[in-house]
């Protein structure tokens, strides 16, 4: 099993430029610089790399919407999305803290592919250590002529800066992120136009997830066919999978796409802690639908999880056990989403606090049966397309699936006028 992204990462340390080079680092860049930007795009397209930020959009295709050539607006931008604030998600942290040059190389290649001259790494506030490591790695890259003017004598220029955020989950949404980078309130922007044509400072911009970009050097170095070959499914490549919650061995592993859910849970996460039963999980971060025991044998790839009624999302799973109250868990999630609403659109701004309040009262034993109708209505009102951005629809995913799979638990709270899981 290949683990291109993580095999060289040592816990607690990061790979310096020299160390990274020894692992074959920056070879992909050299190859890319000999190709045309279009050829680089083609390679990534053929490799079948899909965005690892949650939506799974094909990366090469996204790049192909950026205007190329001398008539394209300038400067163009490439942004690495390292906001990673989705609860339950902790995968990009490993890549940033463990192998920053892999990201930097990926960004240089990607920038070359879209002819961008300026890049930003947008890093969440809490990743203090990651920020230090990236600063160091950027300095190393500049010293080595990998960034700045005329990179490796190719005539290609690319400047790369680190931007650390000041909080707010919505900054992870790519257009809100762009506003934040511009020093504005992080409200999402309308789409269309897409950032590929009108993005940062009004110029063509690509936003990719840290993990997505970290894949790029390996694709260039080893080729599209290799990348296709290392997965167990239609979807190419590996994916960082994480598990948190009351399992024996919470953690993060790079595994081929297409591995089964059961394998990850049982072999890597070690199964449930003693005395606890598996009840369900959110497969890809807080804004994905619950899966249950019935889904343990699904394949973890984009299709597989979608067929089971959820999303692969970020691939980091949050496990619910039978001794933990699902109402409390969903309440916690909706509290998060209500708090993180940017305040732009009405359904999200007003609907999420109401949702949270209802869940709180159900959890506290003061809920009513009609409340469940209001919640069900809310999941419809805040459905995809009905709000300005996907934050609120994301917030509805755990709620609607909890109501579907665990409705009894909600009803018990209401009937017993208390939380049966609290003593």
């Amino acid at each position: 099993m290949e683990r291109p992204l993580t095999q060289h990462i040592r816990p607690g340390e990061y790979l310096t430029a020299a160390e990274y080079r020894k692992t074959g680092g920056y070879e992909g860049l050299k190859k890319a610089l000999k190709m045309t930007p279009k050829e680089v795009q083609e390679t990534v397209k053929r490799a079948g790399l899909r965005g690892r930020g949650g939506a799974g959009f094909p990366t090469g295709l996204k790049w192909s919407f950026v205007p190329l050539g001398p008539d394209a607006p300038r400067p163009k931008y490439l942004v690495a999305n390292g906001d990673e604030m989705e609860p339950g998600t902790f995968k990009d942290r490993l890549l940033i803290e463990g192998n920053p040059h892999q990201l930097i190389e990926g960004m240089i290649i990607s920038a070359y592919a879209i002819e961008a001259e300026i890049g930003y790494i947008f890093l969440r506030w809490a990743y203090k250590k990651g920020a230090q490591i990236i600063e160091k790695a950027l300095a190393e890259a500049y010293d080595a002529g990998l960034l700045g003017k005329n990179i490796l004598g190719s005539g290609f220029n690319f400047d790369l800066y680190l931007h650390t955020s000041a909080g707010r989950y919505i900054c992870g949404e790519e257009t809100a992120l762009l506003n934040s980078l511009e020093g504005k309130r992080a409200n999402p922007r309308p789409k269309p136009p897409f950032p590929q044509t009108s993005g940062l400072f009004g110029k063509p911009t690509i936003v990719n997830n840290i993990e997505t970009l970290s894949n790029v050097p390996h694709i260039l170095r080893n080729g599209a066919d290799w990348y296709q070959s290392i997965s167990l499914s239609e979807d190419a490549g590996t994916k960082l999978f994480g598990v948190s919650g009351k399992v024996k061995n919470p953690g993060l592993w790079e595994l081929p796409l297409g591995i089964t859910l059961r394998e990850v849970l049982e072999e890597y996460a070690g199964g449930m802690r003693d005395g606890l039963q598996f009840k369900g999980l959110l497969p890809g971060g807080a804004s994905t639908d619950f899966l249950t025991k019935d889904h343990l044998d699904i394949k973890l790839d984009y299709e597989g999880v979608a067929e089971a009624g959820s999303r692969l999302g970020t691939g980091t799973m949050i496990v619910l056990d039978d001794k933990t109250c699902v109402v409390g868990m969903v309440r916690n999630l909706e509290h998060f989403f209500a708090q993180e609403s940017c305040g732009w659109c009405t359904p999200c701004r007003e609907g999420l606090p109401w949702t949270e309040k209802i869940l709180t009262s159900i959890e506290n034993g003061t809920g009513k049966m009609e409340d469940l109708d209001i919640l069900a209505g809310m999941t419809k009102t805040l459905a995809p397309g009905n709000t300005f951005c996907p934050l609120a629809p994301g917030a509805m995913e755990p709620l609607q699936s909890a109501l579907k799979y665990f409705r009894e638990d909600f009803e018990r709270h209401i009937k017993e006028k208390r939380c049966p899981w609290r003593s």
Partner: protein
Amino acid sequence: MLSEKEIKEIEEHFAHYPRKQAAVIEALKVVQFHRGYVSDENVEDIARLLEMTPDEVDSVATFYNLIFRKPVGEHVILMCDSVSCWIMGYENLKDHLSQKLGIDIGQTTKDNRFTLLTIPCLGACDRAPAMMVDNELYGNLTPEKIDEILEKYK
């Protein structure tokens, strides 16, 4: 008045953007780094430096939850209250901390040593429950571990 050091640090960011107003979040963070929080006077100082109005600076400052517009204690404890930490029982730890420090979430101890805040997800879910004190991350927390950690900041 911003110090020369602060101004220099803010100005270093100007070069990263096509216009200096884009560096307003950086400016707020610089000031907060040096002073713990951003006072009204600082908002006005930043506005002047960036050729913005205080309204414009504060519009941005108040959007972001990690820009503190009110004074905080010497050390800021950010306790993750997100889902994985919740499952792993952060609520008890929060109560423990609250009791130990004699303050609620959002408050600062009388001796001005600690401010206690919650934060959504620290990206340490595999080490839940987790918290950050200043820039240091602590995972797999227990009441005993918290007591130990607090000692370090005494």
